[in-house]
């Protein structure tokens, strides 16, 4: 818990695009944003969307949290970093609610501003808009989810800046606020089995000793320097170490 607070605190204490990227990557994402929906969770629970947390009387609903988890996963995948756990995502959502409560009267960002931030992120990821949309649709989300998340992120950043202008480093303030605030987490509502697309499996364990013997797919490819190479011909002679490398140059 302490390390999460510190990391978040470090994040909010930094500035600029790097901050935006990092914050997005580690998941300051939610579906609630001024573009579409009112920013604050409501006071009335719905049976279809039970609360996963109660923060100073404000409900963080399960749907809201689940979408944030899926967005976190997708953004992390695009950025090539490990995704936060669903619990870590909830911790950040709680922190966001606290920050937005403390500086509530922030102006909602315009669509141009949101689009500019998304473009900056895509540039940082080296991904096209189509690739980002495709990655989102793999977890059942639309681009509108990303737009709302970025809009909310900008709101949170403004709230942080407002708090900082009061002279208190946000990281310190947040640590105190978390200790003080009435936060209830309903762990029984967090028993959601997230269905990440199949490639996710390759992210989870760093080393994956293949549990069962899988046939090595054969291929014939062009060789640098000329000619072609067929894998099965090499395998007939002995073991092969296949090395996929990512960048040329």
């Amino acid at each position, binding site marked *: 818990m302490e390390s999460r607070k510190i990391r978040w605190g470090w994040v909010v204490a930094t500035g600029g695009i790097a901050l935006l990227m990092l914050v997005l990557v580690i998941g300051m994402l939610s579906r609630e944003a001024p573009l579409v929906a009112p920013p604050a969770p409501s006071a009335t629970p719905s049976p279809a969307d039970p609360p996963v947390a109660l923060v100073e009387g404000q409900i963080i609903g399960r749907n809201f949290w689940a979408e944030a988890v899926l967005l976190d996963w997708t953004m992390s995948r695009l950025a090539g970093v490990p995704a936060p756990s669903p619990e870590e995502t909830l911790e950040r959502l709680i922190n966001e609610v606290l920050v937005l409560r403390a500086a509530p009267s922030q102006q909602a960002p315009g669509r141009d501003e949101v689009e500019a931030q998304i473009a900056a992120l895509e540039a940082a990821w080296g991904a096209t808009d189509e*690739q980002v949309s495709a990655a989102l649709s793999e977890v059942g989300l639309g681009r509108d989810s990303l737009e709302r998340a970025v809009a909310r992120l900008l709101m949170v950043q403004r709230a942080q800046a407002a708090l900082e202008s009061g002279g208190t480093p946000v990281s310190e303030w947040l640590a105190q606020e978390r200790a003080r605030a009435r936060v209830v987490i309903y762990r029984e509502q967090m028993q959601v089995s997230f269905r990440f697309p199949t490639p996710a499996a390759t992210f989870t364990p760093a080393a994956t000793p293949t549990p069962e013997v899988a046939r090595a797919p054969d291929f014939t*490819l062009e060789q*640098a320097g000329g000619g072609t*190479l067929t894998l099965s011909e*090499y395998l007939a002679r002995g073991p*092969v*170490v296949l090395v*996929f*490398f*990512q960048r040329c140059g």
Partner: protein
Amino acid sequence: MELRDRYGEFQARGAEVIALAVAPPEAVEGVRASIGAPFPMLADPGHRAAEAYGVYNLFGDGLAAPAVFVLKDGAIRWSYVGQNPTDRPPVAEILAHLE
């Protein structure tokens, strides 16, 4: 480049190293020439091999994730798929799976 420098240890175990990238042949040739790779390097511009091994576009970048597969008797004996573009297994670990 540790893989190049320790290539002899792979050969000593009777193994061949084959490197692949989702890139045009001329780009791969450029890399091969610049690092002086003693092992074959293949171009997989249509990412067919990368897809067959489940490592294509994991980071949404249209490339293969860095990954190593130890193949023996036509089967995948061990694999390591990087969690980010620079995540690679230590050469010693690969060699251990050739024993």
